[in-house]
């Protein structure tokens, strides 16, 4: 997976040929910890959050819903197709709004249709969790949904100090995935909601291994990552899902979760 991602990066942008960036499904919203309920903006984009050298065309959405105080609400009809501008190309994505009015956690799950990665001749499907909290009441953030591929957080994804850490468990259909391979990337830019575009890079990686950081879960599928900088961090457990094939080709069914760190000031 990583090797072929490198190949695709080489093919796509020769100038950035040394950047081995990972695909990350985003369900972006600017703020995950809200003081009170409000209508939030969301952008669903399939990209490489650190290097942003290629924005993929999303193939569609299978499921998009939110859970608040155990109540599930379908959000698929709220999605509107957009062209999202990365720093090197544009890709098909979505935008939506959601009224996060009730107190507590709003646990969103986005299950896109598998994306065909022609450079690797495989399909990729990243089941993505994003949690937004209203007024500090914890209700659903740690809920295990029994998804085919899922990262169950042991740390609240919206209340992490810079320098703190995030711990999660990689699961598939409720069972831990031992020694799961996890990619970690920093959303290295601001998202321009008005223009549906990515901003410039904030930090430079000292070495390729820092662009997409590869870590592994332990024997219980559990992993911890210390967060060095404020902002959004994405975690992707590669091929953790139980579906291994799509349209006669290999499927990498991944689990993604996004967490947001804040500076102490």
């Amino acid at each position, binding site marked *: 997976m990583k090797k072929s991602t490198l190949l695709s990066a080489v093919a796509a942008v020769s100038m950035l040929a040394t950047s081995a960036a990972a695909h990350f499904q985003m369900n972006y919203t600017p703020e995950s910890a809200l003081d*009170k309920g409000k209508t939030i903006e969301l952008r669903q984009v399939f990209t490489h959050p650190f290097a942003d050298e290629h924005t993929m065309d999303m193939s569609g959405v299978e499921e998009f819903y939110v859970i608040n105080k155990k109540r599930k609400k379908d959000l698929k009809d709220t999605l509107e197709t957009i062209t999202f501008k990365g720093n090197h190309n544009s890709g098909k994505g979505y935008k939506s709004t959601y009224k996060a009015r*009730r*107190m*507590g956690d709003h646990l969103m799950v986005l299950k896109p249709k598998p994306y065909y990665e022609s450079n690797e001749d495989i399909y990729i499907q990243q089941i993505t969790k994003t949690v937004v909290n209203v*007024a*500090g*009441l*914890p*209700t659903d953030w740690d809920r295990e949904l029994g998804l085919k591929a899922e990262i169950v957080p042991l740390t609240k994804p919206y209340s992490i100090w810079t320098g703190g850490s995030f711990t999660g468990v990689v699961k598939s259909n409720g069972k831990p995935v031992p020694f799961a391979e996890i990619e970690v990337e920093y959303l290295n830019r601001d998202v321009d909601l008005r223009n549906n575009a990515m901003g410039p890079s904030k930090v430079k990686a000292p070495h390729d291994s820092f662009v997409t950081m590869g870590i592994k879960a332990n024997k219980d599928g559990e992993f911890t990552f210390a967060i060095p900088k404020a902002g959004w961090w994405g975690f992707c457990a590669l091929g953790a899902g139980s579906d291994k094939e799509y349209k006669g080709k290999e499927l990498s069914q991944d689990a993604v979760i996004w967490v947001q760190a804040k500076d102490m000031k």
Partner: protein
Amino acid sequence: MKKTVLVLALATGSLFAHTALMSCFDNGDGTVTCEGGFSDGSSASGVKFRVEQNGKTVIEGKMSEYSDFTFEKPSGAYTAVFDAGEGHAVKITGSDITE
């Protein structure tokens, strides 16, 4: 007062180790809903709630089984008070309560 504190403590476990929380929104139909809770996720069901105007209580009740309370929006300035016991009251000013 002491009796109430005791009852609350029994009802919600180690209540006082946690922060009382409240969030309110305007339903847009002349009513307002306030939701209460505690920072450890425990329920606010049965906890006292009131609406004050000019320092006087105009509406009084308890949080429902869903830890919320819906009331008719008073005309003029008001304050919603989630009263989880001494030192644990959360107040929200009516002007901060929006749709």
